[in-house]
């Protein structure tokens, strides 16, 4: 890809509780201002990869045991989570982890905790409200009481308040109605384009993710199995079959599913 990517993950291995090996030899890159998708089924290792980058792993007793993670040319795999945020990487964790007893506005403001330029925070709050006008209406409501879509907006907006160079988005579509998913993804694309925030997007919803991303990686069982431009991936037969649910003749009918499994080409 790029000569000097914003983020370079080089051959990392992640171990939980000192014994459980969950990631094996994962390497990926995110270019400056890029929008990269990380696809895979449940338990493939997407969230672990993101947590390895943001170093939230340590809070779950996980550890990067091999390999290197570089951000803007500096190693970050030994830095603690707060330091990683200060350097410009914010993770939006899956499951809409809002602070439920804080009001929408307070919740958004916690995102600016690591910043030194406190006089610009107010301006950025207005910026977040301009992307998510619904949050402006609900600014004094506790986040525990707003709808799921609004909660997802709060956590994305909160991440934006840290003014990151790279946002790690973990399953923003989870548990949301298709229309809302579309709305959230539209905003993600706008943030990427207008605010120049690079985005690494972990998703199970491969169709949606490949629609917005320019490059994609596919994970299975803690390894990367395939990567390429989003268009190339969309046309790959295995991806079409296993991740997009399509065959050559279009939508798959489950009436015709045979009992044997199609062999994935990338497994040898």
């Amino acid at each position, binding site marked *: 890809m790029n000569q000097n990517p914003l983020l370079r993950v080089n051959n990392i291995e992640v171990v939980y509780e000192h014994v459980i090996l969950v990631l094996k030899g994962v390497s990926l890159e995110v270019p400056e201002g890029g929008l990269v998708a990380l696809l895979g089924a449940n338990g493939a290792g997407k969230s672990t990869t993101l947590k390895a980058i943001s170093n939230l792993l340590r809070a779950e007793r996980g550890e990067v045991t091999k390999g290197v993670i570089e951000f803007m040319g500096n190693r970050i795999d030994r830095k603690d*989570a*707060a330091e*990683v*945020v200060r350097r410009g990487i914010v993770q939006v964790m899956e499951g809409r982890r809002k602070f439920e*007893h804080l009001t929408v506005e307070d919740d958004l*403001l916690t995102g600016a*905790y*690591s910043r030194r330029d406190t006089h610009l925070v107010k301006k950025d709050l207005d910026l977040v409200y301009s992307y998510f006008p619904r949050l402006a209406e609900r600014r004094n409501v506790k986040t525990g009481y707003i709808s799921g879509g609004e909660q997802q907006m709060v956590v994305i907006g909160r991440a934006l308040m840290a003014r990151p160079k790279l946002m790690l988005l973990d399953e923003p579509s989870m548990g949301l109605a298709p229309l809302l998913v579309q709305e959230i993804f539209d905003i993600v694309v706008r943030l990427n384009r207008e605010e120049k925030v690079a985005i690494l997007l972990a998703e199970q919803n491969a169709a949606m993710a490949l629609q917005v991303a320019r490059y994609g990686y596919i994970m299975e069982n803690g390894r990367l199995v395939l990567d390429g431009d989003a268009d190339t991936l969309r046309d790959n037969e295995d991806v079409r079959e296993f991740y997009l649910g399509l065959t050559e003749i279009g939508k798959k009918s489950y009436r015709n599913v045979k009992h044997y499994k199609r062999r994935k080409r990338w497994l040898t």
Partner: protein
Amino acid sequence: MIFAIEVAIGGLLVGVMYSLVALGFVLIYKSSGVFNFAQGDMTLLAALALVGFLTIFPLWLAILAALVLMIALAIAIEAIVLRPLVARPPLALFMATIGLGFFLQGIGQGIWGTDPKGLDIGISDIPFKIKGLLISQFDLAGGALAGGLVFALVWFFQKSRTGRALRAVSDDHEAALSVGIPLRRAWAISWAIAGLVALVAGIMWGSRLGVQFSLSLIALKALPILILGGIDSIPGAIIAGLVVGASENLAEVFLGPYVGGGIQTFFPYLLALVVLWFKPYGMFGREIIERV
């Protein structure tokens, strides 16, 4: 009637001082989700240290030295007790605070001795009269001090950037970490504040009851207050403290004679039980928000 008002006011002023003890629990619980069993022992340690420092320093310097000690203790507790237990079940942390309590008690008594000591901070306990009411000067000073501290704490938690971060930590550790709030510092800060509260409580209770082992047992007074007010509510701790203080005094004086007296010690628990029937999170406790 005048007598009843005097009893009530006396109870309220003592209640503020109960609140002070309960507040220490609330602060730790809010930020780390731990019921800090060592709060009573921290109060004892703070009072013992203050008495110890008073033999070498003037009053203001001794208070300052005790405060520095409590802050250093908070930082040490974070590094030695809390950090290795990150992401362990809350029960493990709770057990750790029990151990910590015994440790602090032992250390304090080891250094400064087990004999009861007097603590004189220069406020005399002579009652004075306002409009025919007899009010204890000492209780009034204690009430004012505790009230001021409480206002400062409420402001800190609701309005300041750090206070907001601490509230975020109490809602979701990991999410707080993900937005760049350093958990270690957040914990050290909340334990330091709990240490400050312990010191103030130690000063007030120590000069009232004398500084000795039984000082750590005033933590037991905090339990019904926590149940009444809700374990994670600062205003709850204050109001419940007032309620407990006033009601136990009134109950002792007016109900006591009919049942043989001595109901002061258990009346707050009875009250707490009744409140639990109607408000399971306490009067001001944070409800568990569940959307279905």
